[in-house]
């Protein structure tokens, strides 16, 4: 493990580099896949950056301004903490912060993200954001369970909740192969906590941008930055748990991790543009009645595999 003095700048540097990549991916996807006449996708493109800086800051009437600022701060802080858990190399140093129960902490990051999104929708004292926040909590809670079962499935062969151990356990076989249902289910969680595509119940076009409908200037910038940061953290975590993280021949570990995480991020961006958002109640039933049993099945497969 590194000292906090190394861990923090390292995490932030990786996070910023990743956010630039997310911005490029989003801009590419928008150009190539989905240039639609109404666009809720005000993400971290360079044009987007230019559009928000140097704009006047407006608040709504009687907002909860402290919460409005705190929401992106919490979202971003969670993304940074999540990313700090990820082992960057197989050899020395490993994760910036090597926590013994790494995936439990990641579970907490997922759960607190729901809080950050709700806080964001609540804070402006406006109807459309509030509705987005309200809808999101139901869906965000449900999909989180699915992801936790899948993550536990990844902990079984490692016999540990530590992420470095989970990476180590994938030397012979990636968890992607060991539990084939794991990554697809985990990607759905990624769509939810980064507010994208089919699980974007918070910032959706049917609410004129939902929780970010009232955001402008620095608050819009902060929220969109945090949202991109969460995608980086998620992609790194998915690459670690299912794709062997820094493991790989010839190239150094961090490069492998970056390549794998970049791939996961690209897949997530494409899925976000492709998939349609179901009715909220339909999605909730789908999660509990289809996805959750699938995650049990995934756990059983992982369990049997671990005993082999």
């Amino acid at each position, binding site marked *: 493990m590194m000292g906090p003095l190394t861990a923090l700048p390292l995490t932030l540097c990786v996070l910023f580099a990743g956010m630039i990549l997310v911005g490029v991916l989003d801009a590419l996807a928008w*150009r190539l896949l989905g240039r639609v006449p109404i666009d809720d996708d005000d993400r971290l*493109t360079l*044009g987007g950056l230019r*559009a928000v800086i140097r*704009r006047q800051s407006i608040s709504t*009437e009687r907002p909860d301004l402290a919460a409005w600022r705190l929401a992106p701060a919490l979202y971003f802080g969670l993304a940074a903490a999540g990313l700090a858990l990820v082992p960057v190399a197989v050899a020395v140093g490993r994760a910036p912060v090597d926590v013994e129960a790494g995936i439990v902490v990641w579970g907490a990051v997922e759960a607190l993200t729901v809080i950050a999104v709700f806080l964001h929708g609540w804070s402006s004292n406006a109807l459309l954001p509030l509705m987005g926040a309200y809808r999101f909590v139901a869906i965000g809670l449900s999909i989180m369970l699915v992801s936790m079962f899948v993550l536990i499935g990844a902990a079984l062969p490692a016999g540990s909740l530590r992420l470095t151990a989970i990476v180590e356990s994938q030397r012979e076989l990636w968890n992607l192969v060991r539990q084939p249902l794991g990554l697809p289910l985990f990607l759905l969680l990624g769509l939810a906590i980064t507010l994208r595509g089919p699980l974007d119940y918070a910032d959706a076009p049917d609410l004129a*941008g939902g929780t970010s409908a009232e955001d402008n200037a620095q608050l819009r910038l902060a929220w969109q930055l945090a949202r991109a940061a969460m995608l980086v953290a998620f992609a790194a975590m998915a690459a670690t748990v299912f794709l062997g993280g820094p493991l790989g021949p010839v190239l150094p570990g961090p490069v492998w991790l970056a390549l794998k995480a970049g791939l996961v991020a690209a897949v997530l961006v494409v899925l976000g*543009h492709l998939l349609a958002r179901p009715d909220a109640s*339909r999605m909730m039933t789908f999660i509990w009645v289809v996805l959750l049993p699938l995650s049990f099945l995934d756990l059983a497969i992982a369990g049997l595999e671990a005993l082999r």
Partner: protein
Amino acid sequence: MAVSEAIPRGHRQVRYFAAIGEDALAWVEGLARDAGLRRVPTPRAASLLLIAGRLPERSWPALRRVHDQMPHPRAVLHWGEGAQPVPDAVALAPAATPAVAMRALQGDLDRGARGSSPDLLPNEPPAPWLGKGPHGQGGEGMMGGTPYGRPMTMRGDELRDGLRLDAHAVTLGPFAPMLPPGLALDLRLQGDVIQRVEVMQPPFRDAMVEAPFAAAIDRPMSAAGLERARAVHHLRCLGRFCALRGAAAPAARAYASAYRATIGGRVDLGSLRRWLWLSGLRPGIAPGLGTLSAAQRGCLSGPALRAAGVPDDLRTRLEPYTGVGFAPIARQAGDVRARIDQWLAEAAQALDLAARLEGLPPTTFAEGLEGPAGALGAPAGGDRGDRPALDLDALLRGLEWGQAVSVLASFSPDALRRMLGAAG
């Protein structure tokens, strides 16, 4: 005020909020072909307000509010004819292409060469401060205080389980991006569930869609061209629906196909079908969502009527359609899913008809013809005038907001306008 002539250097992205007036939806949606223009769903994210089309005077107060909600520096462009309430708006003729003007305006704002458009409404609190103390609890308990002139939501009966909870009364529109342009709804909401709906203002006229069809009543028009226009209409409705559901890629395919049909290019709907299938749009819609009651079914027309099991189509009786063996498509369910399927199927059918009717001499349909949203002119059976008006409250009551938006988007804006009983 003049816009500087110089084309700004480099690539500039313009974020605009569109206040869409009469007959202008197609114009605005066409702007999406320009990668430098992004239509954003809220004025908070926009620096340019694009007023498109003629704006009826009754929606001017709403426009003033939307205008003032944009952060400085901001500018206004009026693309179309007629008067509008923003004095320093840059006027642009309907025939002009606004992209250049929009980029130039944005450039002027960025450089500070142009002053920001000032507020139109007086800088007075719409509801003055009445609370006691800086945090405005009012000192009279949760409901007694008036912390900020606007009152708190009062309690009302809950729809399902007989609780008395806050029933939030709110008006949305006429420039709400998730509703058809012009539609203003007075809602009573429980969280995100609709308790009551009242139509404050029906959608604006969108006669541009029907213009070629209406013209064919008086003078000869190419039937192939009309069928292409029908396909364009259906594909655009489909694209709009997908976009509201967050499926940007299929939406973009639908709009791209519509554009290719407009310019007379070859359109392959197979790729759109595959994208729609991949997107999972259809299974995500609850079966039976947006089904009209038997009493209400009489206000349906065109594709929506055929999707509800009534194969009424004037084309079955008209030359040249009878000559190429036209048979109407119909399906039973009459819900949102069926209307989506119907659009796609009828778009494919119209493109096929267009190919078969190509080269025939133009026809005048003096007896009336089948428009994209129902019969036009003087159809033999049943006049449009005696249709009952749609009871939107009965249709949307109890639905979650996202579902309600989907139900509204499953009708074309013009069809919805006529169903709501608006004249003209």
